[in-house]
C-alpha cells in the first residue's frame, strides 16, 4: 500500500506491521529484563528482612531497594506501557505507524534505555542509594538525576509520536470518532506529559544544579511537592493501560462487547482531570502544608475514585451481558460462562479482582488524619504490591501473552495458556502471603524501607518477625513466578509460526453515539490546568515564602 488506510474495527486479519513489531518488542524486552533484575533485588530484600540471609559485603539493602524501586516502578512499567501503546495506535490508527512517529519512538526508546543503563550503574556503584523517590537533601551522584531526566524526556518523545499518529488519523478521518484504544492512549500520554512536568522541574531546576555544586541549597518542601505532584499520577499512568486492556481487549477475549464506549471515554477523562491535583495525600504527615489544603487535595483524591467505580460497573456489566448471551441465568451465572482456561482472560481478570482490596486500601491511605495509622509502614508497601505489582502486573503479563505472538507472527499455544494460568496462580499465592503479611504487620507498626532490625529486641519489633518471615516466603514464591514468566516469554518467542489475533472489542450495538465533546482536548487540558493551579498555587507560594533557607547536600550512606 502506498497510502495508509484507516482500518475499521481493527479486527481484520492483517498481520502486525513488521517495522512496528521491532519497536514494540524492543520496549517489551527492556521491560521484562528490568522485571527480572528487579525481582532478584526483591527476593534478596525479602530474605534479608525475614532474617534468613545476610548480604555479602559488596551490596547493601538500601542499594537493592533503590534498584528494586527504579527497575520495577519506573523501568518495567514505562517501557511496557510505551510499547503497548505504540502497538495499539499502530493497529487501530492506520495499521502502521507513520515514519515520523516510529522514529520518535526509537529515539525515545534509546534515550530511556541510556537513562536506565546509567541509573543502574550509578546505583550499583552505591552513588545513588536514595531510593526511587530520591528525597532531598540526600544527594545522589548528578548522573543519577541526569539518568532520570533522560528516561523522562525520552518518554516525552514517544508521547509526541503517539500524538502525531492520532492527529494524522483524525485529519484523515474527519468527523469520525477515534478508535477507543487510541483515544485511551492519547489520554494516558497526556496525563504522563502533564505529570512529568513536576518531576522534570525538580530534577532539572533543583537537583541537577545542586548535586553538581553549582547551587548551595535546595528547598526540600518544594522538591517533595513537585515530586508528589508527579508521583500520584504516576500510578495512574500505570493503571490506565491496564484499564485499556480491561475495557477494550477483555470483551473481545470473552466473546462479548464493550459495555459503553461513551462511559469508558468519560472515565478516562475523569481520571485525567483528577489524578494530578492530589499529590498532598502522599504528604499528609508533613509539616509546612496547611491542613486546609491537605484536606482539599483529599477531597480531590476521593473524586478520582469515581471513574474507578464507573469502571467496576462497566466491567461487571460486560461479563454479565456476555454471560447472559451464552445462556447464563441468575445473579452470578455469568461466572461459569467465562473462558477460565484462556490466560488472556484469566490473568487480567485476577488483576481486576485484586484491585478490589487494592483500591479499598488506597481510599484508606488518602483519608487525611487516618493516614497516621499506615504512613511509612509496611501497609503501604502491601498496598502498592496489590495495585501495581498484581493488578497492573498480571494485566501486563496477560497482554504480553498475546501481544508478543501477535507482533511476531507466532502462536499462543495451549501449553502456554496452561503455563500462564499456573503463573497467575503462583503470583496470587505469593502475593497473598507477602502483601497480606505486609498489610497486617504494617498495622502493627513495622516500618517500610527498613532492613532487618529488632530495635534492640523491643517486644513490638520481635512480634513483627513472623510476618517478615511470611513476607520472605511470599517473595520467594513470587520470584518463582517471575522465573516461570521469563521462561514463558522465551517459549513464546520460539512458538510455532502463525497468526495471533490482536483482540480489540466492539461496542454493543444498542449503545448510543459517543459525544464529540470527549475529543475536545483543549477543554480537558484547560480543566486539568485549572484544577492543578487551584490545588497547588496557594500552598506552593506558601512554601516559597518560607524563611527556611534550604538544605545543603547530605550523603548519609
Amino acid at each position, binding site marked *: 500500500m502506498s497510502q495508509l488506510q484507516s482500518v475499521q474495527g481493527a479486527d481484520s486479519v492483517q498481520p502486525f506491521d513488521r517495522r512496528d513489531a521491532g519497536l514494540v518488542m524492543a520496549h517489551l524486552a527492556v521491560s521484562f529484563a528490568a522485571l527480572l533484575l528487579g525481582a532478584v533485588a526483591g527476593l534478596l530484600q525479602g530474605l534479608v528482612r525475614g532474617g534468613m540471609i545476610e548480604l555479602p559485603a559488596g551490596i*547493601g539493602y*538500601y542499594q537493592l*531497594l533503590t534498584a528494586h524501586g527504579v527497575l520495577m516502578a519506573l523501568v518495567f512499567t514505562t517501557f511496557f506501557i510505551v510499547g503497548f501503546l505504540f502497538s495499539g495506535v499502530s493497529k487501530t490508527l492506520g495499521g502502521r505507524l507513520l515514519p515520523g512517529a516510529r522514529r520518535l519512538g526509537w529515539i525515545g526508546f534509546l534515550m530511556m534505555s541510556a537513562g536506565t543503563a546509567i541509573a543502574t550503574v550509578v546505583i550499583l556503584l552505591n552513588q545513588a*542509594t536514595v*531510593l526511587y523517590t530520591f*528525597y532531598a*537533601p*540526600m544527594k545522589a551522584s548528578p548522573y543519577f538525576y541526569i539518568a532520570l531526566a533522560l528516561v523522562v524526556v525520552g518518554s516525552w518523545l514517544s508521547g509526541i509520536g503517539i500524538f502525531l499518529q492520532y492527529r494524522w488519523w483524525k485529519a484523515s478521518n474527519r468527523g469520525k470518532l477515534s478508535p477507543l484504544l487510541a483515544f485511551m492512549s492519547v489520554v494516558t500520554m497526556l496525563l504522563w506529559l502533564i505529570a512529568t512536568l513536576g518531576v522534570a522541574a525538580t530534577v532539572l531546576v533543583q537537583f541537577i544544579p545542586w548535586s553538581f555544586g553549582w547551587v548551595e541549597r535546595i528547598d*526540600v*518542601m518544594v522538591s*517533595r511537592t513537585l515530586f508528589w505532584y508527579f508521583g500520584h499520577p504516576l500510578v495512574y499512568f500505570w493503571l490506565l493501560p491496564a484499564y485499556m486492556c480491561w475495557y477494550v481487549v477483555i470483551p473481545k477475549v470473552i466473546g462479548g462487547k464493550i459495555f459503553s464506549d*461513551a*462511559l469508558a471515554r*468519560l472515565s478516562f477523562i475523569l481520571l485525567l482531570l483528577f489524578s494530578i491535583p492530589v499529590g498532598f495525600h502522599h*504528604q499528609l*504527615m*508533613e*509539616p*509546612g502544608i*496547611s*491542613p486546609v489544603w491537605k*484536606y482539599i487535595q483529599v*477531597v480531590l483524591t*476521593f473524586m478520582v*475514585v*469515581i471513574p474507578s*467505580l*464507573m469502571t467496576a*460497573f462497566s466491567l461487571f*456489566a460486560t461479563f454479565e451481558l456476555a454471560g447472559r448471551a451464552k445462556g447464563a441465568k441468575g445473579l452470578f451465572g455469568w461466572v461459569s460462562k467465562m473462558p477460565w482456561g484462556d490466560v488472556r482472560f484469566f490473568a487480567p481478570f485476577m488483576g481486576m479482582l485484586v484491585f478490589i482490596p487494592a483500591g479499598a486500601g488506597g*481510599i484508606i491511605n488518602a483519608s*487525611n*488524619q487516618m493516614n*497516621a495509622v499506615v*504512613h*511509612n*509502614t509496611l501497609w503501604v508497601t502491601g498496598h502498592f504490591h496489590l495495585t501495581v505489582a498484581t493488578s497492573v502486573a498480571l494485566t501486563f503479563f496477560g497482554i504480553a501473552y498475546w501481544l508478543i505472538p501477535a507482533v511476531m507472527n507466532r502462536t499462543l499455544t495451549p501449553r502456554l495458556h496452561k503455563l500462564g494460568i499456573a503463573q497467575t496462580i503462583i503470583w496470587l499465592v505469593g502475593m497473598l502471603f507477602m502483601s497480606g503479611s505486609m498489610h497486617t504487620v504494617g498495622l*502493627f*507498626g513495622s*516500618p*517500610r*524501607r*527498613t*532492613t532487618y*532490625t529488632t*530495635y534492640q529486641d*523491643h517486644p*513490638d*519489633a520481635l512480634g513483627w518477625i513472623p510476618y517478615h518471615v511470611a513476607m520472605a516466603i511470599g517473595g520467594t514464591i513470587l520470584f518463582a513466578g517471575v522465573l516461570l514468566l521469563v521462561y514463558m516469554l522465551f517459549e513464546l518467542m520460539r512458538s510455532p509460526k502463525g497468526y495471533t489475533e490482536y483482540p480489540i472489542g466492539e461496542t454493543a450495538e444498542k449503545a*448510543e453515539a*459517543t459525544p464529540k465533546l470527549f475529543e475536545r482536548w483543549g477543554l480537558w487540558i484547560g480543566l486539568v490546568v485549572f484544577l492543578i493551579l487551584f490545588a497547588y498555587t496557594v500552598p506552593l507560594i*506558601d512554601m516559597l515564602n518560607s*524563611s*527556611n*533557607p*534550604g*538544605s545543603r547536600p*547530605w550523603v*548519609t*550512606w
Partner: protein
Amino acid sequence: MHIHRLEKIWLVIGIAMLILFLAVIGAGAFVSGMQPPTSHHHAIDPDRVAETPPFDNPGLVPAGDNEYDVHMVAYAFGYQPEKLEVPAGAKLNFHITSSDVVHGFQITGTNVNMMVMPGEINQLSYTFDKPGEYLVLCNEYCGAGHEFMSTTIIVS
C-alpha cells in the same frame, strides 16, 4: 449519553459513601481537632538547629498539669533527647525538627506518626494513658544506619 438505571443508582450510592467518609474525617479534623501533623509554618535554619531555641536544649518542658512540651531533634541516626521518661497520663506536645535529612517519628501502637523535615518544625500531641516502654522509630529512609534509628519513651 445513556446511563443504565442501575448504574445511576450505583454511582449515587458510591458517591454518597465517599461523601460520608469525607464528612467523618473532615469533622474529625476541623471540629474535633484530629488534624494530621502540621505546623503553623515555623521555619528554622537546619544548619543552626543546635543553636536555635528551644532545640538548643532538647527535652521536656512542663506546660501544665501533667503536660509537657517536648523539643526534639532528629539526626542520622538517632534522636535528642536520647531517652524520655514521663508519668502515666502525661500529655506530650512534640515539636521536632531535623538537623540533616528527612526522618520519620513514629510511636508504634499509637497515631503518633509524622515526618521530620530539615528547615521545618512538626508538631503533634499525644496523651500516654497506658504505662509501658513505647518504641519510637524512624520510618523514613535516611541512610545507612536507618534501621538503628530509634528511641523509647518510658511511661511509668
